[in-house]
């Protein structure tokens, strides 16, 4: 007879895992209805960092909106620049020179690794391990230096322009990348020894936070959350954009649907991003980095288009409706964290409180990405 607490029913207790909480990585509030340790219902309350990104689009010209794209998901901001630039280029029919495409892919993959490192640190802190953050942030600083040397910003880039990038990469950026790749590979092995094979970490994440493929489909979860539930969907492979088809890299997919599977997907994705950067550096052509005649005050033709890129946290889609003027009529941001978080209420029902934190951490949320 295990002392199953079901036989001894206590009253429920409502507690706020509120806006200011170390485990919510930003201002996300979760109203927990608890029965002892077990969650009866965990309702995320969002909107505490709503910054009107879509409303701002309606009084900014197309090129004035670039700084905003760097501030939606500031962890992997380069990829959001990529999405916005490609969406407007598809709408306005601008072609991008070869070298600019390679630079875009290199900087986006670097930004993806920086974002996964940024997820890795606080995720292990949520489970109680404090030191991996210092390792991960050490490597992340190297990437930030590289990206800052060419784009000027550490976190919130507006490096892309319609028709290319505004600043060519120089030799010490390439040399920096060349030395960074082998170092990062060893560090990933060190992380595997430091964290992945650690029995305490295994006990906290193995079989915890099950998100099945059916739940992902119902809620529209994408990115590592989806690939951790066995569905092989990555926008770079399924709806290839820019020059991703030229590189051969594979998409890590794990079938266990638990937090450990999502952890493995992200760690393996760092390896794949390193492979992409390596190939892109090898095949980097010379030539201009900006298309010639791109009007300074871009007025795309009347029409509507939807563009989708693979952000660090999932597929980031932009729907732009233009009415011919230089200000977009409507700009819809389909952010991955919004969908990934919406399944938390159903996925965490019945879990223990500490396990729901492992689930929340493995969803890799960036709250301004949820609130927009």
């Amino acid at each position, binding site marked *: 007879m295990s002392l199953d607490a079901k036989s001894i029913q206590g009253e429920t207790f409502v507690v706020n895992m*509120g*806006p*200011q*909480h*170390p485990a919510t*990585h*930003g*201002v996300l509030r979760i109203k927990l209805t608890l029965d002892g340790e077990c969650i009866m219902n965990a309702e995320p309350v969002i*909107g*505490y*960092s*709503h*910054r*009107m990104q879509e*409303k*701002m689009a309606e*009084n*900014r010209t197309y090129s004035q909106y670039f*700084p*905003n794209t760097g*501030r939606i998901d*500031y*962890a992997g901001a380069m990829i959001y620049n990529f999405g916005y630039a490609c969406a407007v280029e598809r709408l306005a029919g601008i072609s991008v020179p070869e070298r600019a495409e390679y630079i875009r892919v290199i900087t986006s993959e670097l930004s993806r690794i920086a974002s996964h490192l*940024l997820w890795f*640190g*606080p995720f292990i802190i949520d489970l109680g391990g404090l030191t991996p*953050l*210092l*390792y991960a*942030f*050490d490597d*992340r*600083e190297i990437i*930030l230096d590289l990206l800052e040397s060419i784009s000027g910003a*550490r*976190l*919130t880039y507006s490096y892309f322009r319609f028709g290319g990038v505004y600043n060519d990469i120089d030799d010490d950026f390439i040399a920096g990348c060349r030395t960074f790749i082998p170092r990062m590979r060893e560090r990933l092995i060190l992380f595997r020894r430091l964290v992945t094979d650690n029995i305490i970490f295994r006990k906290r994440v193995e079989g915890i936070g099950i998100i099945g493929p059916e739940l992902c489909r119902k809620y529209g979860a994408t990115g590592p959350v989806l690939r951790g539930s066995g569905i092989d969907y990555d926008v770079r492979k399924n709806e290839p954009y820019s020059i991703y088809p030229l590189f051969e890299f594979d998409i890590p997919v794990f079938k266990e649907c638990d937090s450990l599977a999502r952890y493995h997907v992200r760690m393996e994705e760092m390896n794949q991003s390193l492979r992409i950067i390596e190939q892109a550096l090898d095949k980097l052509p010379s030539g201009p980095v900006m298309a010639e005649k791109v009007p300074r005050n871009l007025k795309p033709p009347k029409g509507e288009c939807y563009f989708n890129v693979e952000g660090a946290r999932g597929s980031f889609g932009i729907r732009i409706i233009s009415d011919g003027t230089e200000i977009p009529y409507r700009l819809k941001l389909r952010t991955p964290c919004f969908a990934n978080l919406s399944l938390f209420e159903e996925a965490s029902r019945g879990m223990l409180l500490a396990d729901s934190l492992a689930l929340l951490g493995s969803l890799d949320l960036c*709250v*301004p990405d949820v609130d927009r």
Partner: protein
Amino acid sequence: MEQQTSHPYAIIRFALLDKVLALGRANSLWPMTFGLACCALEMMAAGASRFDISRFGSEVFRPSPRQADLMIVAGTINKKMAPAILTLYDQIPEPKWVIAYGNCAISGGPFIFPGQYSVVEGADKLFPVDVYIPGCPPRPEALLEGIMKLEEKITGHRRWPIVEAG
């Protein structure tokens, strides 16, 4: 809402004791983990290995307001979040200080445009701010400089050398 900038006085005050207390407080400013948006990442980077805020005594980021004495407002203050920030400010025991870290905390930053409906234009609209650190996001070194500036405000003199730029 009256804006007292200095903190209320104690029952017993000795000149030397105040100097000692100020030195102690200035060199162990425990910030509250309170990241709102992008500036939170730069605050974490300041706490991490390269910029290492613990050299200035603020390594311990206390999640609970009761144990913190420095509130770093790092990020955009939202109108839905403002009551929560005021509650947290109240719950920090005296003596407490506030650093407005980043343009959003100083004046609403890039999210101020005609017809904006959800951003509070600056932390000083809610409570008195001691140190303003501009930047979007400001570099972690700027946070360290901000903490040195706060120490100068608390103790009255600057212990660290001022490094001229360039």
